[in-house]
């Protein structure tokens, strides 16, 4: 082996080794994040955290009970916006539409998906806050719901399309009308994929902060009903993290751990279910 070949082989092994380093570093970031959250917030995830209200500025102690409930309410209401529009819209794309209208709807959904979350926030402000002159849970749910739409729409369409023709034809040959076929055969066949995609969409908007800044805004106390501003986990994390108080930092870590833990669990469960046979859509 001559010197040049030796050099080429050395370069080859070195560069390939470097790609391995890149992979380790990239994946390592995930564990770094988890590590910091666990280390800094692990001990603060306690009973107080889940049950107490936040204390006034400067006082230590308290918890994030209202933020947790607020986030739950927001997600529930957001699904009422995002899921039906995405689901039925997806049925339309997969089952009823012509290819031209389908491409328009898909293009709009892709466009909507690419809108930065802060822009969604000011849009939701002008539609759902300005006319009513106050912040509200519903406005926040509206903003989050909009962000869910593209995900649920595309997933529903793709999973419905993946149901083979002969399943539909079997039902129609028995005399079922088109909508009956869809409702009784196609959707049930695709429901696992659609449901897990909805879960992924929820996991995605559960962590969104920007759209809530001018819609749900925030609340240091309990928010009753749906038309009052409400606290939420992501917004609490933001406010507490940038504050100068050590105790609030501690609580921010805890909240981060809880939020990320929940999001990751949903992702792991949903993706594992989906990967058994069906391709997982990239976010």
């Amino acid at each position: 082996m001559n010197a040049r070949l030796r050099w080429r082989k050395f370069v080859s092994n070195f560069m390939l080794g470097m790609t391995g380093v890149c992979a380790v570093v990239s994946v390592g970031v995930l564990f770094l994040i988890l590590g910091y959250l666990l280390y800094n917030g692990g001990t603060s995830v306690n009973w107080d955290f889940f049950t107490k209200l936040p204390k006034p500025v400067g006082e230590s102690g308290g918890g994030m009970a209202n933020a947790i409930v607020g986030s739950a309410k927001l997600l529930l209401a957001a699904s009422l916006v995002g899921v039906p529009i995405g689901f039925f819209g997806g049925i339309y794309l997969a089952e009823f539409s012509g290819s031209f209208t389908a491409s328009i709807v898909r293009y709009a959904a892709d466009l909507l998906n690419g809108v930065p979350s802060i822009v969604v926030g000011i849009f939701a402000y002008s539609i759902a806050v300005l006319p009513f002159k106050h912040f509200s849970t519903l406005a926040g749910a509206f903003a989050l719901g909009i962000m869910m739409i593209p995900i649920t729409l595309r997933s529903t369409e793709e999973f419905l399309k993946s149901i083979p023709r002969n399943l539909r034809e079997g039902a129609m040959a028995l005399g079922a009308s088109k909508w009956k076929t869809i409702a009784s055969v196609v959707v049930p066949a695709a429901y696992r994929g659609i449901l897990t995609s909805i879960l992924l969409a929820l996991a995605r908007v559960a962590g969104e902060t920007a759209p809530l800044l001018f819609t749900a805004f925030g609340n240091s106390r309990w928010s009753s009903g749906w038309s009052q501003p409400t606290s939420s986990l992501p917004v609490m994390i933001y406010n507490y993290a940038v504050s100068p108080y050590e105790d609030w930092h501690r609580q921010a870590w805890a909240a981060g751990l809880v939020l990320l833990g929940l999001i990751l669990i949903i992702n792991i469960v949903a993706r594992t279910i989906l990967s058994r046979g069906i391709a997982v859509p990239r976010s």
Partner: protein
Amino acid sequence: MATSTTTLKGARPSSDSRSFLSRLASGDELARLITMIFAATVVLITVMVVWELWINSALPRHKFGLRFLITDVWDPLADQFGALPFIYGTLVTSGVALLIAVPLGIGAAIFLAELAPPRISDTLQFFIDLLAAVPSVIYGLLGFLVVVPMMRSVIFPALNKPLGFLPIFKGPSYGVGFLTAGIVLAMMVIPYIISVSREVLLSVPRDQREAALALGSTRWESTWKVVVPFAKTGIFGSIFLALARALGETMAVTMVIGNTPKVAASLFSPGYSIAAVIANEFTEATGDLYTQSLFELGLVLFLMTFILNGLARLLIIVTTQRGSGMGNL
């Protein structure tokens, strides 16, 4: 990404040659109308977003015109609003992010696509997908409470002592700033580069690599000189996607950029981005010109990401088509 099933004309699930009356009787026409309304809502919302951005920015658009984009002043008290510091900050932080994320991401994608056995490749990709699911505010939390102190105590001295004479590395550093934001953004966009690049690299036909090996290439030479160039359009697509993500990123950047509207050469200088200024000042904005200038910034940001996303999708489609043997480039 979506693949539409190619079917024979007339055999599409949506084509229905029955008469209108029979469709009505079976309830199918009603179902079609109902679902169509939901689908139309999607289009309606999208149109409304653009519409609201446009009309809510009317004042500054008329007052400042295109000068808005190049004015360096942001002075609410004097009713002077210019977008330049924010455009600058958005571009600089995204640029720094790409400079870090692109080599790391492509390197990792090469490892996953060319070197790692399928099980390891899939497992690592799973972790990368989880990384993409981490919300922005968590990155911000980490950024503010970990990266910012690290910048002050480790990174700034390491770069400023030897290279402080260069304008981009001039001190002082407060921990927050363009570089910090760029580092945090890099962590956020790496998963996008890896996921798409890996898919695109995997779609390169086997016999390209084998042809290179058959000519006596080393493994690295066949990967770097043949496989990667074959996939380069798709890889560029992934970079554009990552850039679009970085441009629109709000919380993480807001927490570490320093929130100072100024154009500065040094990477250690605090700055501002479009998303960050909207997040910080929108609820405090008094007066229509102020609020609407923030809306106009939202419009600018929207346009930037819109163009980039469109380009990205085009590039990715082109590459995966090429890999399947169609298309000549």
